[in-house]
């Protein structure tokens, strides 16, 4: 029971309290880029959940079984990026085969997951926070679910903004950033929830 609660808190913590987009401000590019329609946002969220969890898993293994034993921790960033890039490529191929509509919808943003700093961020945080393999995966899952959640909520709001009478100067990205800011303020309410 206690162990289970630990993992629940880990998910809640990474998804809500320290939401990657709204609290750590990681992954802002896809957050703004793929949030114009809810359908694409859901697809992107799924893709990110998959990539982030998988990447955390692989990267953790590489870190502890390859880099650490050989004292090559200084190569962390470059190796991580290499692995993540390959993973994204792999996911892209699979999606293209399995779900062409999703592939079309995600368009340029699928390759962009590569440069989604949230993916690298979660991998590095896993190492910094000294999580074990399971914790790392759970943390990544929570973080990516949080990312997806923020993305989907935000896409709903942006669809509505399209029908709003926003002053010319604020149309598009400016109003999206303001909205993200207020959303981020609202999510501050969760602070202190998980120590």
């Amino acid at each position, binding site marked *: 029971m206690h162990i289970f609660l630990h993992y629940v808190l880990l998910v809640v913590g990474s998804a809500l309290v320290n939401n990657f987009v709204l609290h750590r401000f990681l992954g802002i590019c896809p957050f703004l880029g793929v949030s114009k329609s809810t359908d694409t946002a859901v697809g992107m969220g799924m893709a990110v959940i998959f990539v982030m969890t998988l990447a955390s898993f692989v990267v953790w293994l*590489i870190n502890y079984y*390859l*880099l650490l034993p*050989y004292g*090559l921790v200084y*190569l962390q960033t*470059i*190796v991580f990026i*290499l*692995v993540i*890039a*390959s993973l994204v*490529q*792999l996911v892209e*191929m*699979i999606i*293209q*085969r399995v779900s*062409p509509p999703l592939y*079309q919808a995600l*368009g*340029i943003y699928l390759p962009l997951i590569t440069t989604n700093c949230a993916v690298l961020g979660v991998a590095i945080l896993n190492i910094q926070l000294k999580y074990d393999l399971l914790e790392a995966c759970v943390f990544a899952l929570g973080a990516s679910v949080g990312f997806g959640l923020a993305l989907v909520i935000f896409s709903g709001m942006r669809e509505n903004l399209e029908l709003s009478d926003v002053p010319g100067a604020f149309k598009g990205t400016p109003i999206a950033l303001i909205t993200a800011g207020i959303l981020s303020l609202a999510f501050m309410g969760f602070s202190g929830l998980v120590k």
Partner: protein
Amino acid sequence: MLDAVFVIGGVGFLAALVLGIAAVTFAVKPDPKEAEVLDLLPGANCGACGYAGCAAFAHALVQDPDTPMACTAVDADTAQRISSLLGRELDVAGPMVASVRCMGSKDSAGSRFSYVGPMDCRAAQLVAGGYKACGYGCLGLGTCEAVCPFDAIHMGADGLPEVVLERCTGCGTCVDACPRGIIRLVPKDALVELRCVSLDSPKVMKGACDIGCIKCMLCVNVCPFDAIDVLDNGGPPVIDQDKCHRCSLCVDVCPRGVIDIYRVPQKVRIVEDRCIGCSICDQVCPFDAISGEPKGVYVVDLDRCRGCGLCVDKCPKDAIVRVGDA
């Protein structure tokens, strides 16, 4: 140092291996047509077409026949080949611009009733056929301005739209949007237009608008080029842009001032040392503006010349030039 090389190389190799296997396992056969189109496209992936790279654009072109050929980097020949590959007609007409065919401003054409509702011409047209006294005139609520993707049409103070010729791309969005069919596309260089589309009889027209065409036929009769014709639909005469020489006689003769010319052409003069006195120009000039003795040097009477340019085209010696030109 060496282990670093090995590790990165090894990881890279492994990744490449996995990707290689995946590429084979999850290979997606592209549409052969798509591949052909893709070959013809520049392959620069510049994104100017609005798609994520040439491959996505090729996909869209093949899948959706309505996709406009929006690539800016292909030459005309390639565009033609792509179009024929896709089995569609390529629009080869010259550049067009929108032309608004109504001059019935707020002051010259009144209202039948006071309209309450959305400020959209199409919506206003649904209420008792539009509030304007003239059933054919511009409603002036600016739907054309709202739909223009290029910001090339603006509502003037008189309640009529004005086309910004430099910005207009001739896309035709406003033409489709206008509920009264007032806007049409004309070649960019054809700039004489009768700005009225009313099918009303002269009597009705006089009651509805101070300026609309009353079908008096003066313009038809005055045109030296037979460029103005009457259709049998009861509407205003139509100017054939191919025949029109922009002499603007019709503009001057119209009692309602509803024929408009954008740019009056330059008058002509004769370059004396090239003129051989063949008299062709004298014979073709519809305005009797050229005079002279055969074998002598002809001169242009600038008061009479209207810049139609017939003589310029006919002169065998290229001795006639526009006034502004060297």
